[in-house]
């Protein structure tokens, strides 16, 4: 029986086109695997990435990030790795809403920004201890939670499109507030601050290099980011596989029926958007620590929202693990596609239009085209496709 149930149900092409989210953890596959009660299965909430190959790939990715400072030495590589970790949280928390519940919000960067400003404002006030970091992150998460709940209670009973438009307006308002309220946020210039001592680049944990790498404040910052991201990610995998998470998926499928079962849909939608906002705020707090700076462009801009959408769609929504795949691909593209484009640009330097198309700054154009193609032809995203391929 087990292996028969392992096959995920084939989705007819036409249907796949209208429901981008595939049958997720609530499939029989998770059920039969649950009988293997190993500790790692508990950690993964009985929802491993997939079968052998996919599990191996994800394990490899995990190992690469675990040893990143030693495998990919250098400030830039470490920055890229931190950014990926942070975006995994940001995108996975967005997936709670988009992929699992069917809510489209454009206010996700607002909560990211609130978390970042929480830490930045306290640290910039001159209080540089860990207390400031923890209090800032907690305050950012709390504000995000309350704000998301307020927006949710006001407008989550409306239709998908209406809600997404309202969040777009609210997010732009947040950006305006951040730019105008100079005394608190530093306006468009943002806030530069110094982080706790052991996170500073000059700090050395060991006198001697370990495996040829100096374990300085940057490496410690990375490991802090990695550890927090890992815990939050596993927490979110737990959320989607919990009884609460099952109700979310049911809402995505048929909200009318969920109501008749005694679940209050608005309460669930509000709850998930509040949880999601708090996760985004934690990601923002990490971002502030990594950058040692925060401003509207770093954590609030609409182009970040586009990044999140790119990541979730490319990775695959409604899968959680898609966030990892999407964040890796898009962040790498942001950093390294420019080099590729630069090379092509050099090769076609003679043709003015072509060279403009391949200008290093046009990486977003190519990712945008990829995005449209994926929404059109691969609505399950890369990870979803790998998971459900026969």
């Amino acid at each position: 029986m087990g292996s028969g149930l392992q096959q995920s149900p084939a989705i007819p092409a036409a249907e796949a086109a209208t429901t981008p989210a595939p049958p997720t953890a609530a499939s029989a596959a998770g059920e039969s695997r649950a009988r293997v009660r190993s500790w790692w299965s508990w950690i993964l909430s009985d929802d491993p990435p997939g079968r052998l190959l996919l599990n191996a790939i994800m394990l490899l990715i995990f190992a690469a990030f675990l040893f990143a400072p030693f495998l990919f030495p250098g400030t830039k590589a470490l920055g890229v790795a931190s950014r990926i970790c942070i975006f995994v949280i940001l995108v996975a928390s967005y997936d709670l809403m988009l992929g699992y519940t069917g809510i489209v919000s454009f206010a996700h960067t607002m909560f990211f920004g609130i978390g970042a400003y929480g830490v930045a404002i306290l640290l910039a006030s001159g209080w540089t201890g860990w207390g400031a970091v923890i209090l800032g992150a907690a305050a950012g998460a709390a504000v995000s939670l309350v704000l998301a709940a307020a927006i949710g209670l006001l407008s989550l009973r409306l239709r998908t499109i209406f809600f997404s438009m309202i969040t777009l307006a609210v997010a732009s308002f947040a950006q305006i507030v951040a730019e105008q309220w100079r005394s608190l946020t530093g306006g468009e210039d943002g806030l530069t601050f110094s982080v706790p001592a052991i996170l500073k680049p000059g700090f050395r944990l060991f006198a001697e290099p370990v495996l040829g790498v100096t374990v300085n404040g940057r490496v410690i910052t990375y490991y802090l980011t990695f550890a927090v991201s890992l815990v939050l990610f596993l927490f979110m995998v737990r959320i989607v596989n919990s009884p609460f998470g099952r109700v979310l998926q049911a809402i995505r499928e048929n909200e009318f029926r969920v109501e008749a079962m005694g679940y209050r849909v608005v309460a669930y939608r509000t709850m998930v958007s509040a949880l999601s906002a708090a996760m985004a705020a934690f990601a923002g707090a990490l971002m502030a620590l990594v950058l040692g700076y925060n401003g509207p462009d770093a954590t609030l801009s609409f182009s970040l929202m586009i990044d999140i959408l790119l990541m979730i769609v490319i990775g695959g929504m409604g899968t959680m693990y898609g966030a990892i795949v999407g964040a890796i691909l898009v962040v790498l593209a942001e950093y390294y596609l420019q080099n590729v484009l630069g090379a092509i640009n050099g090769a076609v330097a003679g043709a003015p239009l072509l060279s403009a198309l391949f200008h290093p700054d046009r990486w977003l154009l190519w990712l945008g085209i990829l995005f449209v193609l994926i929404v059109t032809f691969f609505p399950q995203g890369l990870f979803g496709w790998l998971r459900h391929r026969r």
Partner: protein
Amino acid sequence: MSKQWLDRLRRAAPYAVTPLLVVAALPAIGPAPWVTLTVAGLTMGMMLFLVASGLTLIFGLMEVLNFAHAAFVTLGAYVTISVLRPLAGWTAQPSLVLNLAALLIALAAAAAASGTLGFVFERVIIRQVYGAPLRQILITIGALTVIEQLVIVLWGAEAIPLPKPASLRGSVFLGTSSIETYRLFALFVGLAVAVAMHLVLTRTRIGLVVRAGVEDREMVQALGYRIRRVFVGVFVAGTALAGMGGMMWGQYQTLVTSQIGDGMIILVFIILIIGGLGSVGGCFIGAILVGLTSNYVGFLAPKLALGSNILLMALILLWRPRGLFPIAEH
């Protein structure tokens, strides 16, 4: 019987919001600036209406909310630059006739360019996502990114100045209130389009089909109308209007960047939410309301100007969760 009166009052209330705002602003602002600001608000409302009306009409008929609408605004603004550049001789002279001729040519070109792109856009992007709201939002956001990047490829990433034609630069005086000349032009164009749109919708056969389609698409088809073609027509018209809005807005701002549409589209969304998604009349009233609020608040409390429309939206949503003039659900 008092229930009937309450009902009547409830139905009339949304119409009263704008007049009340205008009247309430008079004592707060004082007569001379009030005239200036009211005209400025109406003008801004008209330019916003150009953009918003296309979006709301497309939504009303096909239940498609095109998040890429901003890109058509941006395109209109950039096409204006390219058209007015060779016509610099016309715009530099203080001849009203030559100036207006140049602007009207630019307006037509912006509409044509955005409408043409709209035609392609409907075929390539929109056609696959009818009836799938989630994919619609995603794919149009993706397309927005692509078009904006392509605009940068064609016109460069730098902001480009777009000076107003010579004779539309100054102000005219109405008593003691000064009114920018360009605003009168924008007001006139906006009103002309609004009137034309009203006439097309109420007096023509195609207008009849569109109004019927907003109510019940299937029945329109069952009566033998090829609604797909009507969709394409309305989409092209809607995007052409966005192009015209972009031309007017760019000329008004006198500086064009690749984000010019994005800035405007937030206001346009607020208008749609206030007016009721899909309602052209609601869109008209919403646009004027947003234009007036921005100008009045901008005068009274400049710091609040940008946020005032969000507050307006929040207030109206608390009062009417589906906007002032919601259309029936399909």
